């Protein structure tokens, strides 16, 4: 997904860091998907194992079927995560004291992480302020909706269907365009984005379409797909390991118990890994939004 044609060595430290993050993320994604495919194929030969399918992400409706309020299991998990997140932070905000307790310290750490380590570090202290609420909302919304993927009984992330990632990508898209227009005006923003200075004019025939593609299409598309596919692959992996563990322990007989131990260990490891991925994807999405806003402001 190296859609940004610019040479990373010519970019600022933040952007270079982003390139690294993006590269690492893509590698992780590839590894995950490859692993998932291999395991699925292997499991398919075994038979008797519940193989996770795409239908898991599109369960039958449980309420309001046929209306625009159609409600299914994934929607339910999403609403539940939203309510829990809001209630927890509402209570913490009401109980916020000058001398923080344990819960408040953790909440403050999270909020400070977004404000200082993402917003202020990428945008600079002066420019960050108007975007802190957007970035904070993004980070915590993505994390809350991701983490349901490893919670028992819920076991699915509502970010593994396209709606939320897409809406968040649209929010990010609007934010960086608004930031660019605020900084340079409408024409200024279009000019600085599509026709960067310091390039001989004939190159603009190539450059402008590439910039349109990379800035206005690939940025939101990659934001959406990166988040969604990570959550989707994570869910498939976890379900597969749980199903295989169940199969080897219960159905395949004692001879396979040792294999079951391995798959059970793997399912624990991948649960921990998924918790990490939940936070990492929230961080990457938020960081990239901040970087896009910064690039719009600084375009020249």
């Amino acid at each position, binding site marked *: 997904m190296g859609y940004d044609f610019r040479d990373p060595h010519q970019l600022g430290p933040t952007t270079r860091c982003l390139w690294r993050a993006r590269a690492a993320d893509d590698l992780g994604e590839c590894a995950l998907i490859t692993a998932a495919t291999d395991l699925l194929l292997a499991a398919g030969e075994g038979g008797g194992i519940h193989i996770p399918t795409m*239908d898991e*992400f599109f369960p039958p409706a449980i309420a309001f079927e046929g209306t625009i309020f159609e409600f299914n299991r994934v929607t339910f998990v999403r609403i539940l995560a939203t309510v829990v997140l809001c209630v927890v932070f509402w209570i913490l905000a009401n109980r916020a004291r000058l001398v923080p307790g344990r819960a408040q310290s953790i909440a403050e750490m999270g909020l400070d992480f977004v404000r200082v380590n993402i917003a202020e570090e990428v945008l600079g202290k002066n420019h960050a302020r108007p975007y802190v609420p957007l970035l*904070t909302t993004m980070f915590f919304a993505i994390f809350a909706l991701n983490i349901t993927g490893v919670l028992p009984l819920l076991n699915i992330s509502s970010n593994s269907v396209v*709606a939320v990632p897409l*809406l968040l990508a649209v929010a990010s898209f609007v934010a960086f365009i608004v930031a660019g227009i605020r900084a340079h005006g409408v024409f200024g923003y279009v000019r600085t984005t599509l026709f960067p200075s310091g390039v001989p004019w004939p190159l603009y025939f190539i450059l402008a379409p590439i910039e349109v593609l990379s800035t206005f299409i690939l940025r939101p598309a990659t934001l*959406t797909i990166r988040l969604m596919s990570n959550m989707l692959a994570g869910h*498939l992996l976890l379900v597969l390991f749980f199903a295989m563990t169940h199969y080897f322990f219960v159905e395949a007989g004692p001879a396979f118990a040792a294999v079951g131990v391995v798959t059970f260990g793997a399912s624990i490891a991948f649960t921990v890994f998924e918790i990490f991925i939940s936070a990492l994807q929230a961080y990457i999405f938020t960081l990239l939004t901040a970087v896009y806003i910064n690039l719009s402001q600084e375009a020249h």
Partner: protein
Amino acid sequence: MIDATVIAAGEGNAPEGVMMFVPPLEEVVWSALALVVIALVFWKKVLPAFTRILDERAELIQGGIAKAETAQAEAQEALEEYTRQLAEARAEAGRIREAARAEGATIIEELRTKASQDAARILENAQRQIEAEQQQASQALRAEVGSLATELASRIVGEALADSARQSRVIDRFLDELESTTVDRT
């Protein structure tokens, strides 16, 4: 994964291909609702609350630092004042002691002078008194010795010396002789 989707096709309602990335309308509605609620809670409630707490805390810490600085400055000032007063007090004590010593010396000097004057006066008086007494005694002695001698002489020589003029002449001569012998002896 492709195998899995193929197997799954027909059983469920999972979309395929690019339709996976086109959310059905109800999904968009619920997602938007969830995100809007989260955004509102963070925008209107959580962030203002925590920002206020952070500001208050920063203010408190800065106020505390300022207060501590003021207190320290005041303490420093008090210490300087105290040291200054102490030095003043010491200097004054020294001055007073010096003055007292000088005054004591003067008083002693005065007393000594007065005592020596008194002594001199007493000595003089005594000498004068002694002189007067000596004189008185010598006169009395002279008169008595004269009368005794006269009486003795008159007893010896009889009435011959009854004449007073002669008598006094004889006494004077006797005394002069007596005196001269005394002078010679000394």
